[in-house]
C-alpha cells in the first residue's frame, strides 16, 4: 500500500468552497528510462484519478508520463452535505488505491 497525503477540511459550512489536496507516493516510471542493464524500465504510471463525494464523481483526471513522481493534485469542491470523500488512483499495473476522508457540513 503506497502512502498518500490527503488534506480535506474536517468541517465546512454548507455551500462553502473547500480546497482538497492529494499526493500519492508513486514512482510514475515513464517507460523511457533505461535501467543499469540498458533495458527500458517498464512504464508504470498512475493513469486515472477519481474523487467521489457521497458516491458521485466530482473530479477526475487522466495522467500521462510527463507527470512527476508522487503526483500532487489539488482542486476545489462545494461542500453540500456531510459525508465521505473517496479518492482512488489506478496505475498501469491495474492496481487501485483507495483512500477516504470524512467531512462534516453544518
Amino acid at each position, binding site marked *: 500500500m503506497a502512502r498518500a497525503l490527503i488534506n480535506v477540511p474536517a468541517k465546512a459550512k454548507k455551500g462553502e468552497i473547500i480546497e482538497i*489536496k492529494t*499526493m500519492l507516493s508513486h514512482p510514475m516510471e515513464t517507460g523511457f528510462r533505461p535501467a543499469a542493464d540498458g533495458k527500458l524500465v517498464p512504464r508504470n504510471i498512475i493513469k486515472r484519478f477519481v474523487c467521489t463525494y457521497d458516491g458521485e464523481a466530482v473530479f477526475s483526471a487522466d495522467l500521462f508520463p510527463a507527470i*512527476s513522481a508522487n503526483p*500532487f493534485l489539488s482542486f476545489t469542491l462545494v461542500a453540500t452535505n456531510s459525508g465521505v470523500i473517496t479518492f482512488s488512483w489506478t496505475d498501469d499495473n491495474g492496481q487501485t488505491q483507495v483512500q477516504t476522508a470524512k467531512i462534516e457540513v453544518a
Partner: protein
Amino acid sequence: MRALWILPGCAMLLAVTSAHAEIAAHERKSGAEFMSPQTQAMQADDASNPGMLAVLDGEAAWNEKAGAANKACADCHGAAEQSMKGVSARYPAFNAATSQPIDVAGQVNQCRTGRQQAQPLRAESRELLALTTYIGLQSRGMSVAPPDDERLTPFRERGKALFNQRLGQLNFSCAHCHEDNWGRKLGSAPIPQAHANAYPIYRLEWQDVGSLQRRLRNCMSGVRAAPYSYGSIEFIELELFLAERARGMAVETPGVRP
C-alpha cells in the same frame, strides 16, 4: 617612490583574496532562500511537501518490529516526538565504541545490528531514508547545535580541510562555489551557500528523497572527482564541518530543493 608603496599593497590584496571568504553570520542564508517562490511554498506546506511521504514511511518503520530481537525502535525509544527531538540538530556525534563520529544514518544502522539484531539497512535505501527523515522531522524548527565535544575537533578540522580541498578534473573545492560565488549562477541555477540544515531533502531533480551524502556525491561528480563512498569517514568529517558551519540555523527537514 609612490609606485614602491603600491606594489606591496597589491601583494597583500592577492594574499587575502586567495583564502576563501567565510560567510559572515548575518549573511548566512538557507538554501530555501535561493529557491523559487513555488518551491518554497511546496516545502512550507506539509500537504504538498513530498518529503512528508517519507515521513509517513518512517513513522511506520519506527513502530515495526525487526530482527532476531523482535524489537521496534519505539520499544526502546518510545514516541519519537519526545525521544528524537533535537537529535538530528546535534548529529553527527562521537561514538565511544568505535572512537569515531557517527551520523544519524550510521546510528540507525548501529541500533539495527546491535539492538535489533537485524541486517543493516542499505545506504540510501528507501527504509533508511524514511527513518532518517522521520527522525529529522522531530528537530524541525530547532537550531543546528553540534556538540562541543573535544573528541570531534580533529575530525571537524579534517572536514574543513576537505571542504577547502581542490578536487577532480575541474579542480574546484566546495569553497570555490559555495563561499566565493554563492548567490551567482552556475548555468541557470543559483549557487547556494551549502548549508546542510534541511537534510534528508526531497530533490525535484531526483524525484525522491536523498541524504546529504547523495548531494555531496552529486557535487563531486559535478567537478569530475571520484565521489567518496556512502558512510565513508570523509563524508562524516564533512558533515561535522557543515553542521558547525550551519550552527544556529533552523532545521528544515524534510527540505524541498530543485
